[in-house]
């Protein structure tokens, strides 16, 4: 099955690149280092092998991604995932939305929020804090000028500290980046579920 997906899902799809991934056998020492390939770990996703074409950026972006999504303190991991999903919805990155909606579900142990978000029914189902987070991420993603002081005030009224709002700005902005790679350089495919990448 190689049908290109156009609808949002929490089932992580396959990802088929639109450009040729770097072949591991041809990779330069710098590419192998950025890919963190070791003799005991030679399984690398097509997505990361595509990004290896720009090894200087890949090398610094992977640790940045991890720091923004998993760094200690600040906004909860689930709420950072909500920011990532908000961006992915705006940019229609089916692959990123699936990976990060499923991560949200694992972290929050609740599938109802993502069901409501994908159904466009978030106003009815999200609590005020979740709703304020999703709205801010959505507006910042559409166009930075769409996010306003009122949106930040709503976040603070919902109990977010400056440090938490900063983490939300970071996760939503980071997915402005990730979506422009994942969504433009490849297609999400329905079919057998495989480890096609980490949605970065």
């Amino acid at each position: 099955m190689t049908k290109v997906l156009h609808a949002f899902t929490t089932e992580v799809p396959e990802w088929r690149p639109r450009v040729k991934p770097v072949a591991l056998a041809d990779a330069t020492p710098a590419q192998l280092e950025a890919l963190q390939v070791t003799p005991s770990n030679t399984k690398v996703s097509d997505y990361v092998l595509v990004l290896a074409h720009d090894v200087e950026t890949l090398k610094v972006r992977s640790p940045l991604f991890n720091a923004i999504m998993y760094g200690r303190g600040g906004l909860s991991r689930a709420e950072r995932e909500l920011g990532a999903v908000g961006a992915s919805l705006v940019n229609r990155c089916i692959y990123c939305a699936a990976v990060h909606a499923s991560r949200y579900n694992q972290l929050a142990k609740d599938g109802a929020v993502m069901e409501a978000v994908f159904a466009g029914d978030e106003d009815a189902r999200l609590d005020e804090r979740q709703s304020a987070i999703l709205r801010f991420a959505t507006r910042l993603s559409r166009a930075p000028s769409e996010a306003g002081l009122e949106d930040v005030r709503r976040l603070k009224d919902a109990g977010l500290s400056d440090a938490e709002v900063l983490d939300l700005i970071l996760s939503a902005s980071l997915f402005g980046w990730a979506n422009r790679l994942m969504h433009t350089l490849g297609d999400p495919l329905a079919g057998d579920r495989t480890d096609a990448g980490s949605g970065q």
Partner: protein
Amino acid sequence: MTKDVVVEQAGVKPGEAVHEALLARADILAMTQATHDAALLPEDPGGISHAQRAALACRISRRHGDAGLTSHYDVLMRKASATAEVMRVADPAYTGEGRIGALIAYTDLASMVPRDVGADDIEALKAAGIVDADIVRLAELNAFLAYQIRLIAGLKLLRA
């Protein structure tokens, strides 16, 4: 805090609440600056020169109405000794032709409406003679700019 394009553009000053929050994320700021350098000033720029990268970044910043960042990339473009032809890329009204026209067409779509980028748009880059590695470099440049512009805009809101 060392020199940092995002902090400088957002105008964050020591003593502000936002500055305190950023200190706790100093690792992220340092890595953000490293990605700026990797996307704009790579040691191996491949088929997209430093001048072309800065010109495209200038165009994107201008289309987003970010005057400060436009000025930052204008300086980078001039430091890279951009020719008059490359400098035209920074003008959103210029659409170009051939290879440069293809770089601009992808950039305009990916920076403003990435949801509309499809397989045809990547095929158009290939048809213009842009090799796969340069397509990835172009996508990373656009992707980094999207992140940077939003981070700066968000910090300005948080400071206000």
